[in-house]
């Protein structure tokens, strides 16, 4: 029988890699009987999506600009290139 600690580790690993058949069923069974781990597992999945969206939000936010000082430094460096 899996403990919650192991189940939480498998829930996380399942997001990155395919679990072995044995691990997969052990986790499935645990999630069926443990409401907290089931909740945790759902939250991890949701978190993955949220993090991905957070990155896309930064990428799409045109109010974020390369700081002027850095831009000038790069321009100067480009000029000094042979």
């Amino acid at each position, binding site marked *: 029988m899996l*403990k*919650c600690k192991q189940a*939480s580790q498998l829930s996380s690993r399942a997001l990155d890699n395919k679990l072995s058949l044995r691990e997969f069923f052990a986790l499935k069974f645990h999630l069926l009987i443990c409401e907290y781990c089931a*909740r945790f597992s759902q939250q991890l999945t*949701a978190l993955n999506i949220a*993090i991905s969206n*957070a990155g896309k939000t930064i990428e799409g936010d045109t109010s974020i600009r390369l700081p002027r000082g850095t831009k000038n430094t790069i321009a100067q460096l*480009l000029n000094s290139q042979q």
Partner: protein
Amino acid sequence: MTSTNGTKNHEKKNTLAKSHAHDWLNEHGDYLYRFALARLRDPHQAEDAVQDTFMAAIKANNFAEQSSARTWLTGILKHKIIDFMRKDAREIVASDLMSEQDANMDAFFDKTGHWQEQPKNWQMPDGELEQKQFFKILQSCLDKIPNKLATLFMMRDVHETDNEEICKELNITTTNAWVMLYRARMSIRKCLEINWIGH
């Protein structure tokens, strides 16, 4: 006088490269910065990555064959970002964050392997306003976990690089990566639970 012509052509090419590079900086500099910031999270590192990208671009000197400057520059930037992440990851592996018995992690579970504090029921944000609030909290939670851990997390979850590729690039074992990602997720989830649950 082939050599003189060659030198002239070379000079001409360089002048062209320079003027192109300035155009690229104006047209794509902001975009490249946002791209880097979304992945590295650290403004200084993001600025450095953009700077390295332009230096590499002007040295590469093969821009003329490129159909889209932005795509080409983004390709260079991705490599620069991975360089920064690799440096960060080496530091994580070297630090005691990687020890198997981590005191912080043990705090999540009791000795029998049960939740020390049971995960509470919280809803993911719904609607634009809630999403904005959630996003703010998520950002602050990402800021709270060790930067290097966040970097790895971003690499997996933003960069959409698969696990094996990250491990190869960062020269860590898959087990190390699982442990690090697990810790990052545990910490961020806990932080969200504390700060988001009120909504």
